Each structure stands twice: as structure tokens, then as C-alpha cells.
């Protein structure tokens, strides 16, 4: 096989004939290459995408009310994406926003979230990480007060701290319970390593060794020993997913 027979990314997306049925995403990013990568990845996950390259374009597109989630670069050719978000929030637009930025300090992150951003992703990032976070924003409205969770064959009693998998009781350590609960609240959704680090263990940085994988491995063995199926599957190198399909 020669290299010329490899399809370029555009024809890859063209190959998918069926319409994109996911939630539409507005991406405001002034670096064309990065914007294109984001678009391809989101479309590959079924999200229709609109691109805007300037703060003004982004503001107009956001006001149109088409997108279910916004992705805003913080620095748009001299304009601050945060100010656009502030304008939108001031107008009562409640659409979730993912802020992407080259500014990585914690202060900048807090600044971004205060301005009305819902999540903050630091450049350089993996576009798959971005997609996972966009999907997490879209599904965020779960009931935090639930005392009982169910996903596929797994049931979780949050009061008694008990887990049953395919009818059998599973004995979990507290840290394993905490980890599984995070997945149970996001069934079928891609959960990235950095999301787990941040949300489950409060690690606001990338741990050096693959501790997350070891933790998942332990949890997986405890769940899988009760049956044959893999409940938590790996997803394309970026993270994991709790499988709810039978």
C-alpha cells in the first residue's frame, strides 16, 4: 500500500454519509490548524461543528443560539475570549463553555472559571481530551442528590456504600468506591485520566506514573471477577468509559 492511498482527513469525514446527530458545538479558535483538528475530532464523535475565528464572529455565532456547548480560546488575535463569555453570561446565555488557553497557571484557571467558563483546558492538549470534556459538559446535569445509582448491570447504594454487579455483591475499598461512583455518574461517557485526577483525587496536575491505570486495573478486576464482561473499557488512549451496553 502506498501513502497516496491513505485518505486525507477531509475525505475521512466525507465518508460518513449519515447526518451528525450529536449536540452542536461552536468552536471559537483563531489558529486554523488547531480549529480544524478540533472540528474533525468533534465531528468524528457525531457533533456538528461551527468555527469562528474572531471574538466578534464568536459572539455573533453564540448569540444565534445554535450550539449546545461553546469552546472558546482565551486569546483571539488580541481579544480576550473571556470578555465574550462575560458578555454572553450577562445576556443570560447559560450554554456551557469550555475555555482553552495557553495560560496554565492556577490563577488564570480560576479567572477563566469566574468569568463564566465551565471547564478550562490548557494548551497543548489532546483533541480527544477536549472532546471528552465537551461531552462531559453536555451531560453534566445529573442529580447530585441521588442515593442510588444504576448503570447497566452495576448498582450502587451511596448510603450503605454497597455495590452489586450482575446481582453479586462486590467488596470495594473506599478509594475504589469513589472511583466507580465517578463512572456511575457518567455512564457511557468518556472519562479522561486528567478528569479522574482532578475530580476523584484532587490532583490538579498530571501524575508522572500511570497510577490511574493501576487504580482502574484494580477496580476492573474486582468487577470482572463477578462476570466475564469488561465493565470499564479503555477509550483510544485518552481515558476510560463505563460500558452500559449489554
Amino acid at each position, binding site marked *: 500500500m502506498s501513502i497516496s492511498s491513505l485518505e486525507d482527513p477531509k475525505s475521512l469525514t466525507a465518508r460518513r454519509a449519515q447526518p451528525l446527530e450529536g449536540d452542536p458545538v461552536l468552536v471559537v479558535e483563531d489558529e486554523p490548524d488547531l480549529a480544524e483538528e478540533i472540528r474533525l475530532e468533534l465531528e468524528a464523535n457525531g457533533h456538528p461543528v461551527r468555527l469562528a475565528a474572531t471574538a466578534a464572529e464568536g459572539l455573533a455565532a453564540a448569540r444565534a443560539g445554535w450550539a449546545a456547548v461553546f469552546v472558546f480560546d482565551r486569546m483571539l488575535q488580541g481579544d480576550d475570549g473571556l470578555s465574550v463569555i462575560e458578555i454572553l453570561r450577562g445576556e443570560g446565555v447559560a450554554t456551557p463553555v469550555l475555555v482553552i488557553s495557553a495560560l496554565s497557571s492556577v490563577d488564570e484557571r480560576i479567572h477563566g472559571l469566574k468569568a463564566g467558563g465551565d471547564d478550562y483546558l490548557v494548551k497543548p492538549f489532546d483533541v480527544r481530551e477536549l472532546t471528552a470534556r465537551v461531552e462531559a459538559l453536555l451531560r453534566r446535569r445529573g442529580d447530585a442528590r441521588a442515593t442510588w445509582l444504576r448503570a447497566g448491570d452495576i448498582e450502587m447504594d451511596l448510603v450503605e456504600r454497597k455495590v452489586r454487579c450482575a446481582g453479586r455483591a462486590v467488596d470495594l475499598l473506599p478509594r475504589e468506591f469513589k472511583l466507580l461512583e465517578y463512572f456511575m455518574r457518567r455512564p457511557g461517557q468518556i472519562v479522561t485520566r486528567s478528569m479522574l485526577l482532578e475530580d476523584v483525587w484532587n490532583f490538579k*496536575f498530571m501524575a508522572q506514573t500511570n497510577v490511574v491505570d493501576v487504580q482502574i486495573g484494580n477496580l476492573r478486576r474486582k468487577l470482572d471477577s463477578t462476570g466475564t464482561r469488561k465493565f470499564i473499557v479503555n477509550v483510544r488512549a485518552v481515558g476510560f468509559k463505563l460500558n452500559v451496553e449489554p
Partner: protein
Amino acid sequence: MLSLDVFRARAFRLALAFLLAVSAATAAAFGLIYLEVSRADVQRSAAVLVDEAAKSEDDSEDGLRRALELRLTRDIRRLDYVALFDAKGAKLFGDVPAMPAIPVDGQAHVVPEQLLPDASRSEPAIFVARRRGDGGVVVFGRSLREAYDLQETVLRALAIALAPTILLILAIGAFFASRASKRFERIHGAIVSIMNGEIHSRLPVANDWDDVDKVARAVNLMLDEIERLLDQLKNVGDNIAHDLRTPLMVARAKIDRALEEDAGIASLRAAMQGALAQIDKASVTIAAILRVSAVETGARQKRFKDFDLGAVCAEVVEFYQPLAESKFVEMTIEAAQPIPVRGDEDLMREAISNLVDNAVKFTPEGGRVRVEAAMVEGLPWVAVADTGCGVPSQDKEKIFRRFFRGERSGGNGLGLSIAQTIADLHGFQLTVEDNSPGARFVMRGSMKASLVPAQAAE
């Protein structure tokens, strides 16, 4: 140009101000003397004259004349002018050409221009005129020339005293100003040469510990630090280039070879995966470098909060426990009491997790990792000990530097550097000791750390 600078110099301006003050004070002193001298002299003369006039009021004309002639020839009481006029105003005798223009009231009056008896010139004088019992008028007068001469002497003395003072102060001012401006000239020259790239130059220091000297010393210390950072930056730059270039070159080689070989999709995929792994390695390095910079940018101290360092250690140990178990490494923690620390909890968690990460990574199967946290002498203290291969003594300093990779290292050499940076930010000291076998990383708060809350409170 230098001479102009001298007059513009601060020292010279100070000298001028000093000069003004000295001149004003001297002039005031002399002025007082001047006034006092003339006033006292005039008053004394006036008293004598009034007294003489009163005494001669009732003397007979002849007696008076004799007495007055005696006065004029043997002037004990220094009467310069004596005269007697009759009731009609005609002069009976005396050396006053005409009746002075003063009231006849027995009181002293100053006459600015009195013609001398020889009518050669006029002088200021003081006169008393008194009417006698017989209607005549007796006039006594005294020249004020001496008093006025004294005043002039005082003025001359003032001028003589002031002139050298002024010259002296000006000279001293110019001397110090030129010295100061020469010194600044030298400092300026040093700064220019540093700006031109001679980073090893230093500002001249005069060893007299004055203000300028202190500033020069401080600037030199700053330059030392900048030079050290520049060196470090250069090393880091070289290391970054190496760390990034290697995986990128490997990735490039893999892709290049796959393209050349045209060996089918399976081999192409393998090459792509290999290349991807190399690119991932490069991005991990970039992320770690950015992390150190993010921590170093400081300004975080205003976000410092109180937290329990012991609890943070326990969390980190819990997080790493599965990894340790999977490597059959026994990990224990001893953190009995709460350890109150003021700082950035997330960063401290990162620092301790880097230490624990290292410890687990370098401890062989069956080894032990022990984390301890306690208050020692009132200061927070954390130790992470392993039974790995330890740190050779020649590397004990170096391992905290960016990109240092010792024999035992397998990572990107940034974990300890991040931990060190975070420790610094909190005023903690991070050191490594022998655990025989293995290494023991100790992080202890210093007195400086206890100052951190005060800074944060500002």
C-alpha cells in the same frame, strides 16, 4: 561636560543650600552685633549729655562758661560740642556754629548732619538742648562718628568673614560633587558594559558602606543571581533541545523509514504508533517544563490557605498504594498529628506526590516506602524514604536541578525539580539523605516558612 555635571550634582546642590544657610546665620549674627553696638553707644552718649545739661541748668553764666571751656580743653567726658545761647537765641560762646534744629527739652536727639566747628565737613551727632533758669539755652553734643565707624567695622568684618566661608563651602561642594559624579560615571560605565553583554562585569564598590555603596552591592548581588539564572537557563535550553529533539528525531526516522520501505499497512501502522509514542514523550516533557514555569511565576502566595499537610500526605499515599501494591512494594505512612501549614494545598500535594512517585518508581520488588509527617521543633517536617538504590553523594545537590538525570533516573528529570520549586515557594527546604539502603527525601519548614502567612496577609 564633567564640569557642568559637577554643578548639577546633588552634592553640589547640597553645598549651595548649606552655603545659603551659613551665610544667613552669619549675617544675622553680625547684624545683631551691628545694631547692638550702635544702640548701646548712642544710648550711653545720650545719657551723659542729658546728665550734663541737667547739671548746668542752674550754674551761673560765668561758672558755666568756665566749666565748658574746661570741658573743651580737657574733655574728660568727651563732649565734642558745647555752646551757650542767650534767651534771644544769639550764641554767647561755644563751638557750635548755630543752634541745631532740635527741641529745647533736655532730651537727646540725633542730628544726622552736623557741621564741624572748623566747618570742614558734616558728621552725624547727638545733641541735648536745655533751657537755663535765666532763659538761655545750653547745648551739649557729641559726634557719633566713632559709633558709626564701629558699625562700619562690623560690616567689614562680616564681609571678611563671609567671603572665605563662601569660597570654602563652594570648593568643598564642588569637590564632593565631582567625586560623586565621577563615581556615578564609573557606575554608569559599568552598567553600560553590562547592558552591552558583559554580564560578568560588576558595579564598582567603594567599601565605605554609604547609600550608594549599599545600592551598588545590592545590584551586584542581583547581577550574580541573574547570571546564575542565565547559566541555568542556558543549560536548561540545551537540555530541552536535547530532550525534545531526540524523540522527534526518532519519530521522524520511523516515519521516514516506513515511507521508504512501502512495506504494507501493518508495518506502516507500527511505524506510526512508534512515532506517536515518541511525540507523546516530547509533549510530556513540554508539559513538565510548562509546569515548572507555572509554579515559578509566583504571585501564588496571595492564594495561600491553611491546610493539614499530614492529611495531604495520607491522600497521596492512598493514591499511590495500588501502584506500590502492583510492584509488591510495601508503602506505609505515619502522620499522627495534624500538621498545620499555610500554602497552596494543590501544589504541596503535587510536590509530595512527586517524591512518592519517585520512591515507588525506584524501589525494587519487595522493598519498602515509608512516608512520615510530623511537627519537629514547631515546624512542619515530611520525609519520604525508600529502599531503592539511593542517591550517590556527588549527585545530592544536582538531582534537584532541572533535567538532571542520575544513574537511577528513568523519568524526564523534572519531578524533583518541580518538588524543589514548590518547596521554595513555601519556604520549605528539600534535601536528600542516605537511608542505607535507599534514599530519604526530607522536606522541612523553616522559620522563613512561618513568615509566609504574614506576607500572604498583606
